[in-house]
């Protein structure tokens, strides 16, 4: 039996006018990367902040490392937290911020190593207000690592980062996972969740609408696989006369497949007809495709 480090049962949080989290339950095992996904306002940050002990819940039961974060004073020393809207004292430098954390948390970590890990070494003595958005974000991540925490709460750690920096943070998260850290990750980049998360939960309007491994979710909700062909109008005409359903998307033609094997049949058909096309790929729906549809369907249901 894997050890449960976070358990959430019927968690509910209402603000004066809305219910931000509406009776959700999930648990996270030690060493697992668990990702909360959902559109803006779904209730992800609220959930994470309740687990961090920053906000009080309205009802429900939560346990983080066996303790109630609302009451425990010592829990904070075992957690690493990167909030969504991370900010710091405007004229303190990353070096000073890290020194401060090291002092208060009585940690023995190597601060230079942490700075290098998040690629902030050359900005160690730049005041916070003079850092770029992405650099600020990296400082937030660096601070969450000072106490070598058992659990990390990373609320959108890669938003605002350039693609290379994002990949670097992914590597940091992978390294943390290898070290056996448990991580609760929220993100709007579905590929990030697909790549890093062992399990995901998709939230919408305060409720979890599905959860499981990314593969399981895609498996449960995917529609037809697609054959993507880069080709011109001639290819379209041929596909039309062959009786295939397709859609044009920019330079690509997307052909829906009942079964993956149909792909060979279509390609052979186009060869026979001497159609000119540059390349083709076979594409299953990604978590993002499935996500957009799941969340979109609910929106549509409600507007009916």
């Amino acid at each position, binding site marked *: 039996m894997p050890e449960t480090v976070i358990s959430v049962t019927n968690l509910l949080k209402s603000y004066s006018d809305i219910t931000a989290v509406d009776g959700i339950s999930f648990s996270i095992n030690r060493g697992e990367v668990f990702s909360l996904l959902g559109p803006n306002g779904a209730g992800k940050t609220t959930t994470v902040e309740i687990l961090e002990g920053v*906000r009080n819940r309205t009802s429900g039961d939560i346990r983080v490392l066996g303790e109630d974060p609302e009451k425990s004073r010592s829990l904070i020393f075992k957690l690493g937290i990167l909030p969504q809207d991370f900010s710091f004292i405007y004229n303190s430098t990353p070096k*000073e911020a890290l020194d*401060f954390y090291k002092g208060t948390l009585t940690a023995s970590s190597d601060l230079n190593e942490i700075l290098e890990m998040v690629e902030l070494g050359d900005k160690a003595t730049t005041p916070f207000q003079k850092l770029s958005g992405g650099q600020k974000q990296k400082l937030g991540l660096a601070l969450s690592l000072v106490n070598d925490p058992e659990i990390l709460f990373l609320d959108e750690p890669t938003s605002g980062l350039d693609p290379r920096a994002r990949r670097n943070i992914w590597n940091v998260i992978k390294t943390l996972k290898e070290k056996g850290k448990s991580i609760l990750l929220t993100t709007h980049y579905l590929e990030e969740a697909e790549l890093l998360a062992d399990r995901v939960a998709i939230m919408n309007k305060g409720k979890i609408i599905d959860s499981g491994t990314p593969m399981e979710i895609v498996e449960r909700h995917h529609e037809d696989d697609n054959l993507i062909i880069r080709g011109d109008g001639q290819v379209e005409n041929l596909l039309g006369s062959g009786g295939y359903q397709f859609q044009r998307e920019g330079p690509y033609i997307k052909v829906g497949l009942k079964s993956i094997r149909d792909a060979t049949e279509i390609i052979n058909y186009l060869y026979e007809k001497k159609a000119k096309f540059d390349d083709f790929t076979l594409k299953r729906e990604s978590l993002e495709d499935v996500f957009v549809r799941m969340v979109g369907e609910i929106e549509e249901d409600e507007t009916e």
Partner: protein
Amino acid sequence: MKPSRISAYFVLHAKSYMRSRSALFFQIAFPIILILLFGAIFSGSSYSPTTLIVQNESPSAASWGVISAINDSGLFKVQVISETQNLSDYITVHSVQAALLVPANFTTNLYNGGVGELVLKGHTNPTVASADYQTLNGVLTQIDFRTSNTSQKLVLSSQVALGNTGKTIDYYVPGLIGFTVLSTMFNMVYTVPNYRRERLFRQLSFSGLTKSEWITANMIFSFLMLVLSDVILVTIGIYAFGASLTLNAETIVVSAVIIFGGLFFFTSVGILAGLVSDNEETVSVVGNLVMFPMMFLSGVFFPLSFAPAYLVTISKFLPLTYFINSLISVLDYGNISSVSLQIVYLLIGSAILFAIAVKLFSWKQK
């Protein structure tokens, strides 16, 4: 409360503070500029006093005694003109701001146990004349010329008392110390709403730092900054402008206690003001609403004894007045016993207010 966390935050705060030009300006540079300014304007008055034209129509030991006492106060340089001149003409011809007339009945009235009336004759500018009037009035009160036995001896003994109260710079040193204590309020008035908006208290709490530790570190730092700026003020006051302050182990310790109480008081006011301001505009409105009346009416910028009665009444409701009065009493006169009860009240009041402010000041999100 853990000392290691307090010191970790102290270091972080001190470094950020030292990098903040506006904080340094208001804490250190501004009071220095003010004392240089006040010193230049007012300390001069004791070395090159306003010339006061005096005409004595009632020559006697009593009247000349009063006139020489006025001269010895250091606030006026008396220049006597002959009885035969027409004083009003003299004022006009020589463009004199104001001149003092000792009327013919002055001595007789005094010897009959009545009031010896002196007349200040003004020229055109009423405010200057009125300032002269206030100052002169203060001087005359000290001389106590209503005693029927106006011997030379009485006048001389008044001179000693005047030697201490006469110099305006003596008065401004405690006033400006009060000002530095008052400005600690602004650390909180701006920090609290700003840190709440930026959610920095939440971020600090992730480091394990608690609210009480944060406040303690802030107070220790503010106190050290106060000691620094006040030592500079006193040094400039004494060495640059010749302020005569009573400095000994006792008065220094008691002054430090008053400053410490003031720090608690105004930090609490700052926290409370910061809590009611939820955006930048209200911050400066609330801040100035608290700051300016106190600054001007508590005697930082001008001695209240010269102010109209209704302002004096208002000042009685402003806590800063009591801090400054206590400091004046201790630093200028070395008089601790007469204000010791007042100091105890101030400390108790500060402690209560501080407890309320800390209680209302929550780091948690709703």
